[in-house]
């Protein structure tokens, strides 16, 4: 009996301590933000507008979520205060976590609407975006995602949805074409059963089949660690190349296990999901990673006009290399502000109209948004000047770094 009570007290105390420390932490952060706002508010000519950031800080892809948040916060420093019609506007970010979960995404979208945001950057994943789009559409709030690449993300054709990253359909086709150019006659396609990977692999497979290439489709689950069954199947098939369309954690393990099984000289290719510096370590080091090919949605980084400056700023602020899609989210924020300025108003309907005709000079290039679906390009997709589906950037891993393989 006594023991029971002490256990209970201990648990309560621990919980209270934890909660207190958390509130303490957030309290400090709030003070910092609050001071700035009040200081400006006192001058009287400043108007505050809210911009939402719908991302996933918990759930399956927190590293992507964090990079998106960092990218937007960096953009806030650069474009967060601007003048329009004689008034100084100050942007306040509303960062909410949707756990990459559709149900939660709907609640987050509604919270954004309630908060009165004039635009939203996000969300991070296709599933969450699917359920957020109807709510933003109904409430006429422009939404720019910097990381949703699923071809079917905007199937309903909502005019409020835009994205600053490339649609996967373009990359899928490019992967298939590249494999054929490399002279592959037998190709394995492998996805991780997620929306992104399946979409990419489907398009690539169609391209390859149309070109008369023999293909074998393999799958794994996101989060799998062991691919002995798949590797054995692949070994038996004896391909010239494998296209792995999932993300880098699984891709690294897959490559590692393929090398261990003596399949090191099979060409290993993937989409932008594997184009991460992390991949090198995950394959078990340079020797294994050497010569992996990847495509990318957008200009290669060294060709992105503002990338060097962006990367330096990012590194200075967060002390680490640029995270996935950080610059796309940076551009999403920049484009939204540019649209507000172009519209000359914070009325969301006018911002949406302005976004449709926008031409914005961002980190990733000078871009606008497609107003109608056309082939692989869907409505609201990014259209970068000088970049067409036929010249999708190609990379190869050399000495632990991604270099252009155009």
């Amino acid at each position, binding site marked *: 009996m006594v023991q029971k009570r002490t256990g209970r007290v201990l648990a309560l105390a621990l919980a209270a301590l934890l909660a207190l420390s958390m509130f303490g932490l957030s309290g400090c952060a*709030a003070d910092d933000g609050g001071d700035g706002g009040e200081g400006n508010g006192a001058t009287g000519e400043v108007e505050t507008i809210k911009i939402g950031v719908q991302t996933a800080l918990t759930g399956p892809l927190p590293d992507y979520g964090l990079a998106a948040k960092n990218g937007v916060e960096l953009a806030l420093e650069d474009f967060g205060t601007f003048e329009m019609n004689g008034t100084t506007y100050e942007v306040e970010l509303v*960062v*909410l976590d949707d756990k990459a979960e559709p149900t939660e995404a709907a609640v987050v979208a509604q919270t954004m609407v309630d908060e009165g945001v004039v635009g939203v950057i996000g969300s991070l994943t296709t*599933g969450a975006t*699917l359920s957020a789009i109807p709510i933003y559409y109904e409430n006429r709030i422009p939404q720019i995602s910097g990381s949703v690449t699923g071809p079917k993300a905007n199937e309903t054709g909502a005019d409020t949805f835009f994205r600053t990253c490339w649609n996967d359909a373009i990359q899928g086709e490019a992967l298939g074409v590249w494999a054929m150019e490399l002279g592959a006659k037998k190709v394995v396609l492998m996805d991780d059963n*997620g929306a992104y990977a399946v979409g990419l692999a489907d398009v690539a497979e169609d391209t390859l089949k149309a070109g008369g290439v023999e293909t074998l489709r393999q799958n794994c689950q996101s989060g799998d660690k062991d691919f002995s069954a798949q590797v054995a199947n692949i070994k038996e098939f004896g391909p010239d190349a494998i296209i792995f369309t999932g993300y880098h954690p699984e891709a690294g393990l897959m490559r590692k296990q393929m090398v261990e099984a003596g399949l090191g000289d099979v060409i290993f290719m993937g989409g932008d999901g594997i184009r991460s510096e992390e991949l090198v370590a995950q394959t078990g080091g340079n020797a294994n990673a050497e010569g992996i090919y990847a495509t990318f949605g957008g200009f290669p980084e060294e060709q992105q006009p503002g990338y060097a400056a962006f990367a330096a700023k990012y590194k200075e602020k967060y002390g680490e290399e640029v995270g996935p899609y950080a610059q796309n989210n940076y551009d999403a924020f920049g484009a939204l502000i540019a649209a507000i300025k172009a519209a000359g108003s914070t009325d969301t309907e006018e911002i949406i109209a302005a976004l449709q005709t926008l031409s914005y000079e961002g980190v990733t290039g000078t871009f606008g948004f497609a107003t109608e679906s056309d082939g692989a390009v869907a409505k609201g997709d990014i259209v970068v000047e000088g970049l067409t589906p036929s010249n999708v950037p190609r990379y190869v891993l050399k000495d632990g770094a991604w270099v252009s393989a155009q």
Partner: protein
Amino acid sequence: MATRMETSSGRGTATAHRGAAVRRIASAMPAWVWWLAGIAIAAGFPLLNVIGVVETAWLRVGVVSLIFALLALGLNIVMGETGLLNLGYIAFFAFGAYTTALLSSPKFEIHWPFLAVIVASTLVAMVAGFLISLPTLRLRGDYLAIVTLAFGEIVRLTIINLVPLTNGPNGITGIYPPRLFADAKPALEGIEAWFIIDKPLEYYYLVLVCVVVLAVLLTNLKNSRIGRAWNALREDELAAISSGITAVRAKMLSVVLSAGIAGFAGSLFAYYSNVISPESFLFMQSVIVVCMVVLGGMGSIPGVMLGAIALQALPQLIREAAGAARSDFEVYRMLIYGVLIVVMVIVRPEGLLPDKIFRREAHEVDPRELEMTRQSLFDLEEGEKDLEV
């Protein structure tokens, strides 16, 4: 009878502090007062939104909470009443949701009327429940739990893999809002608009009505012959069988019924969320529904509803509690959610609103009940004296 108990027990505990007195008054109130109060609060909640006190996001949280309350009520039948642990309950929810999505979306250009869809969804889930109960009901305890878990995962993975039917991981988009008639009838056009439900507020009341009706039905069922048979099976299967209960039939009925409720809830969920994808039917969701039932109080109908609402609303509550600092706070939200679950279960292991039987099990001695028992014994003795005189 209630007032008499109140006065007589007050005699025995003159020193009882005020909290205990309040609790006693509370427990003396007839159940229907509580029901009415609960319904009034739930029905009045959206008004707070209408007058602008509460944000619309809370309405969406409310709709999802109520849908999960339906799920918790359904799972409570197998878990709380019959004592079968089901770790794949979300699969029946998925059956309902996907049936609705297929019968009322541009996917196959089918547009059935609302009532037909919801009945079909319920039936499909019930058939699934029947089929899975055929081979599994012989299993007991954790073996049943793992088989239901496997069933849930098989259903989810099959949904992902059956691309032509379900669009695989992309899910089905653009589910039509519920409407009474499939085709717009020219004469009814104006009136018909009234019957299209597509705003959070309308969904809220639709689901609330369903929850209330279901709760009343289940309360009656709980006290019926079949409800008592389930409880008997839960307490001691052998004893129940020897008292003439057909165990397999009773268990099967409970599984099929709870599957039907999940299918019904899934149909409402699909309508409400307008798009469904396999990400909504993860194993973790099954576990969360189990948590709702346990947290609310197994076997207690108001309890499990409260548990569902508490667990669904908690993340948003934490978000709101963080106030202005919420943007920096989001990272810690799930952490606090976890801590709160642990604290709640340790402070009230029997559940928020426990069922009578489970409360007796959870506490070694409940002083209130002891007092009541003593009082009734005393009444009995008094009565005997009356007889003697």
